[in-house]
Structures are given as C-alpha cells and as structure tokens.
C-alpha cells in the first residue's frame, strides 16, 4: 500500500537581506532574494526518511506563492522529493494565514494524502500555526512540533518537547505532522539530485482548480488588516568599552546605574 506524503513548503525572503513592506503593506518580494524556508528543509528531510523506510511511498512538495516560489520546489525536488505542486494565482496576493491554510488544505485534498509534513514555522511570518490550521480544516489529528518522528503500520509517533514537559504522541493516519529543527539535519542536494530534479514534474494549479473564489483569499478576502508598518528606529549607539582588566566591573557599574543591581 502506497504511503502518500505531502510536504508543505514556503518560499520566503532571505532573512539576511533587507526585508521591507510594499506600499500595500504586504511583504515586498521584489526587494530581497527568496529561498526555501530553512525550517521547511527539516520537513522535507523527515518526509524523505519516512518514505525511505516505507515499502512504497511518494513524496510530493506543495507550495503556494508567486512564480519564483518554484525555486523552493526545485530545492526540495533536488533533495529527493518525487514531484511538486505549485499553487499560483494573481488573486492570492496578500493572502493571510487563514486564507493560506484554506488554499493549502484544498490542494492537499486534491493531491491525495496519508501524511502531511510541515516545518514548525516559516522563517518570515514565524507564527507557526499553519500545521494546526491544516489539521483543523482537514479534520485529521495534528502531531506537531516534533523533535522525533516515525511512521509504522498506519500510525505516526513522535516526541514534542514543550516548556514544561516532553510528550510522546501517537495518532492514526491520515495526520498532519510538523517538525522542529531538532528532528535531524537536512541533507544537501547531490549533483545527481539537482540534475534529476530538472526532470521531475511540477504541476501548476490556480484557484479555479481548487474551487476557491477570489474573494475568499488575497488582500480582499483577508481576515486581518495591517494598518501601519514602521521601520524600527535605529538604536542609539551604545557605550562600548575594551576590557583592560576592569571590563566586568565597568559593566557592573552600568547595570547598577540602570538599577538592575
């Protein structure tokens, strides 16, 4: 029996670049290079490991985003995913978390799945709620924020390290899983993988393929509105001293002046 794994990935502005907002207060994607969100690489890695341990499995990577988002899919394909789905539509511009989860859920249902794997959060929005939203929308168990994950006989098991406790979790498939950066180092694409990725299929779907109306997504359909976005004022230059043997004492003096001691 084939195990169908869908990995949701996001194409994000490079965090080391100068990220900005556009005039309509959406993220300015033209200003900074994009790439596959680093945290999604862990999801791709776990999907590949689960697939490698299964008799018969297929890993599909899925993204919602502009034309350039194909780069994120290519990266995942070069790591070893079998095929990719790109949901792209001009009407998606400005879609918020609720809308994104709707589009992803519809695409996952259309693709067919036994297991959905996501990263713990995107490196741009960082909310970390899309996996839970997908579980809610798909009506399947969420097994999220795992630092360890395994699948056997139609059951997914994992470890979730929380603030106050570490929990062992278990759910029947189909399910939605998210993994943290502790789940295991993500592999680098090999040259062979990069060459093979060029031949792998990338399907393109738009909103009509998913039976979603334009009004349900985009800036128009958003459930939240950003009223202002202001660049944080540059911090006033602090005092910097070179330690000449009294650095600790000088620092203590500063902390005392600020009433921390």
């Amino acid at each position: 029996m084939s195990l169908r794994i869908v990995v949701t990935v996001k194409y994000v502005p490079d965090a080391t670049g100068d990220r900005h907002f556009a005039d309509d207060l959406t993220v300015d994607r033209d200003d900074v290079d994009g790439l596959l969100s680093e945290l999604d690489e862990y999801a791709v890695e776990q999907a590949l490991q689960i697939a490698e341990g299964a008799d018969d499995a297929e890993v599909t990577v899925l993204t919602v985003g502009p034309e350039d988002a194909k780069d994120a899919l290519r990266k995942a394909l070069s790591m070893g995913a079998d095929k990719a789905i790109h949901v792209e539509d001009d009407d998606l511009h400005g879609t918020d978390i609720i809308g994104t989860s709707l589009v992803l859920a519809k695409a996952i249902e259309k693709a067919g799945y036994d297991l959905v794997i996501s990263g713990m959060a995107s490196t741009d929005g960082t909310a970390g709620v899309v996996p839970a939203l997908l579980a809610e929308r798909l009506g399947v168990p969420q097994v999220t924020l795992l630092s360890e994950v395994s699948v056997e006989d139609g059951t997914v098991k994992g470890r979730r390290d929380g603030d106050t406790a570490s929990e062992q979790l278990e759910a029947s498939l189909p399910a939605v899983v998210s993994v943290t950066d502790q789940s295991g180092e993500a592999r680098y694409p090999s040259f062979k993988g990069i060459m093979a990725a060029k031949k792998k299929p990338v399907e393109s779907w738009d909103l009509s393929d998913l039976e979603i109306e334009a009004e349900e997504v985009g800036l128009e359909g958003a459930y939240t509105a950003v009223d202002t976005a202001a660049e944080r004022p540059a911090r006033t230059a602090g005092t910097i001293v070179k330690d000449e043997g009294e650095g600790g004492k000088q620092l203590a003096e500063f902390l005392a002046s600020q009433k921390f001691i």
Partner: protein
Amino acid sequence: MAEVLVYVDHVDGAVRKPTLELLTLARRIGEPVAVALGSGAENTAAALAEHGAVKVLTHDAAEYADYLVVPKVDALQAAYEAVSPAAVLVPSSAEGKEIAARLAVRIGSGIITDAVDLEAGDEGPVATQSVFAASFTTKSRVIKGTPVITVKPNSAAVEAAPAAGAVEALSVSFSEKATGTKVTARTPRESTGRPELTEAAIVVSGGRGVNGAENFAIIEALADSLGAAVGASRAAVDAGWYPHTNQVGQTGKSVSPQLYIASGISGAIQHRAGMQTSKTIVAINKDAEAPIFDLVDYGVVGDLFEVVPQLTEEVKARKG
C-alpha cells in the same frame, strides 16, 4: 461593557505570569472572563480575580492531559459560545497559538499571533507586532469575526485589579476529533530553579564563544547572581553544550526581557530575531566587529572568561 475571553495558562492551578499580563491587556478592551481548563483549574480563581477576572470558567476532564490540543479547542469554543466575547486572548506559547488558530477557523475569525502590545481602537482591538527580526513594528486588526489574538510574554506589566472572579463550571462536550492525538507518555522537565526563559525579567545567554558545555557554568553563575534565566544561541545548542529548550532565536524561543546579556554571541540575524525586542541589551565578545555590538546599550570587547566571572563577583558584592 464587552466581555473578553482570556485563556489561562497554568500548571496544576498555578497561573503563569503571561496570563496575568494578558488580564492587564484585556481590561483595556473590556471585562476579562478567564477560561481555566484541566487539573487544578478551580485553584486559579484567586489569582485571576486578583488581576481583574470578573468571571472564571473552569472545566476539568482527563482528555486535557491525555490528548493533544483539540480538547482545549473544544472547551474554548464552548466558552466562546457561552459568552459571545468581543475578543479572545491567548498566551503566545506553542500550544496557545495552536489552540487560538483552530478556534479562529471554527468561529470564522481572523487571528493575530505574537502581539507585543494591545490597545482598544474604534474598530476593535489594535495589536502591535514586531516583525522581520524586530526591524519593523506593525499595527494590525482582525476585520472578520471575533478577534482572536495571541500575546507574547513580557508585553505588559502585571497589575493587580481585584474583581469578582466568580467561578462558574463550563459545560463542554468534546468533539469526535478530540481524542485523535494521544499523549502516551509525559516527562516533566526538571526544574533548574531559575525563572522560565520566556518570562524572565533578565536573561543571560551564552554562544559559540563559551566553547564547551562545562563552561556554561560561568554563564549560569552570572544568571544566578542576577536571578536571571539562562539562554543559549543556536551554535551552542547545536554543539550540544546546552539544551534546545533554552535556545533563543528564530528556531528557538523569542524573549523580550528588561535586560539581555549576550556572552560570546556574535549576533547572527537568526539570534537577533529572538532577542532584539529586549529593553536593555548588553554584550561581551572578543570580536569588536561582532554584529551584536550594533544592538547594545553597553558592550564590552573582551574575553568572556575574564569579564563574566568578574561581573558575577561584582554583582554578588553589590547585592551583599
């Protein structure tokens, strides 16, 4: 006055500080009605009343401990239907955000996560968020449904504001999906006796420059002299020198203390994303060119193995 639901984060009845901060913010919008679930829920009432809860809705069932997240969503939804609040506020823990998100979809509402401030506006609550590694500050509103907003720790000062805090039993019927994800074992994290990282007023962090697990004792000693929590950069965590639960940064915890002391941390963007909203930032680093020095209120260019122990001794001496 409109009622505002506040989801209570507690451990066996002991209310955690971010929930008390949330009550302060909730009072700017309306009358806080607290929702406390699970073992010890009723014991939260005194602390919640002391901080402004007009009502405390409680419910306990084995499901909250035995299954992940969904039973709590069912209960919060029951509270939402019973109260018809003007907003729902939830602490921005990993679990809190998941509960809030699922509730938002169920009630057809928008969600804002990780707010760092909250005010009443003409068209509903206005949430401030700190984005792109704290390089931008945005103000947002939920424009569809009842605003569901999660708020980060240290976003408001805890203020006492005694209110009735009348305890009422919440009636909850769990959905079929509530038992989908079973918690088969739970190992409580051993307490270090130090404050919780995300809640602490002072955080002392160590990075690559600490150069070994055993050397973290120097960082811990400074933290203990200040009553601070201990943090670590990703480099230190990846090297296995300190637990991942203490990691500050994009893939770890985001902290916003009154004072942040970075020792042997260069200040890569991923780390800055997790600490840049700290009120006062101090760094100790050998490398005068380290990007962390761009952020500091006070920086010492020097060897942390000299500076940190000297600072610790000085703090102890001054505290007597």
